[in-house]
């Protein structure tokens, strides 16, 4: 190695060391890349596991599930969950066009979740005023977490699958700071219920 090559090596090493010395302020100036950002939205059975979900339900009996949201969006978020009830012909949210279901919500949860944190809550429900007339089952009342809601939902006997099928589903909404309001977050979860009077 001649002197000129040694000089180049010295300059390179000095520059690298200078960059290391400047790293505290570079950490403020240079934006740091983050991991993927998303919201988790889940529904668990009564034992906090993804199993044992209520399916065959009877009028007057109480059933429970757990609903939860995980925030991985890099900052605190304001969420809302709408609980809705429908039969198989009524509309679900349309994820492709970011449209929530047009059905009126029954119950709702509102909460704030810090980044990296999880929120969860128990949801108990029971059906009352359930009447079967011919091949149609009418549900007149849904109680969610102790609050009773009058509904007028009916299902025709499904001869293929053998039951009267309804769905209890949960829509996730998130506060949009720019819009200054909550908007549907393109996520929903639900359980199918085979109802008997």
């Amino acid at each position, binding site marked *: 190695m001649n*002197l000129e090559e040694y000089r180049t090596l*010295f300059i390179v090493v000095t520059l690298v060391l*200078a960059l290391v*010395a400047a790293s505290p302020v570079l950490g403020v100036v240079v934006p740091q890349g983050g991991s993927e950002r998303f919201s988790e939205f889940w529904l668990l059975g009564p034992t906090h596991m993804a199993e044992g979900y209520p399916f065959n339900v009877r009028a007057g009996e109480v059933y429970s599930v757990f609903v939860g949201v995980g925030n991985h969006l890099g900052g*605190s978020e304001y969420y809302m969950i709408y609980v809705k009830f429908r039969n198989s012909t009524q509309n679900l949210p349309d994820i492709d066009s970011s449209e929530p279901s047009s059905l009126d919500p029954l119950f709702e949860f509102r909460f*704030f979740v810090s980044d990296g944190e999880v929120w969860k809550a128990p949801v108990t429900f029971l059906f009352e005023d359930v009447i079967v007339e011919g091949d149609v089952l009418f549900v007149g009342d849904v109680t969610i977490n102790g609050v009773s809601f009058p509904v007028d939902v009916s299902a025709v006997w499904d001869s293929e699958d053998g039951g009267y099928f309804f769905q209890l589903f949960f829509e996730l909404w998130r506060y949009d700071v720019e819009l*200054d309001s909550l908007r549907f977050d393109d996520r929903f979860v639900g359980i199918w219920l085979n109802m008997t009077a």
Partner: protein
Amino acid sequence: MGLCSKFFVFSVFLFLLLSVSIRWVSAVDEDVAALDIAEAEEVLGSAYGAVLEAEEAGANVSGLFVRLNVADQYLAEAYVWYRLGVYENATRFAGLCSEVVGDMRGEAFGLKSKAHGLWVLDVLVRMIWSVGGVIVVVFLGFVVWRVFRRRYHKRVLGLRPEVVSGES
């Protein structure tokens, strides 16, 4: 008209007047409840925006988030009662929501200013350390290079064959 008849008419009149008045005072109609809920929602959204700004500035907003969550539960209750047509309860819960939020916006701005001040100080300290570090590294590099070059020359020159005269 006898005394009894007068008393009866007066009693009926008083009863009607009272019943109308009491209903007028105690009943909360749908519009009032909707207005209270909208106001509570606006206050909550505004407080959330301020808390978010404080959090982005690096402030510890966990205490404010606890209060926001309480207020939010009241607002959810207000909406549930409103949908059920129980407007008194809806108004009551909307009021509780606004009450819990209170002057949270002001508190959040205070925390934000404090966090911003700390951030500026932190950047200043980092800057001093970085600039000082770079100066030291460059200076040491220069000194080491000078020493190295001198030794290199001495070593290389020491290896050169000496020119001697051919006289013998």
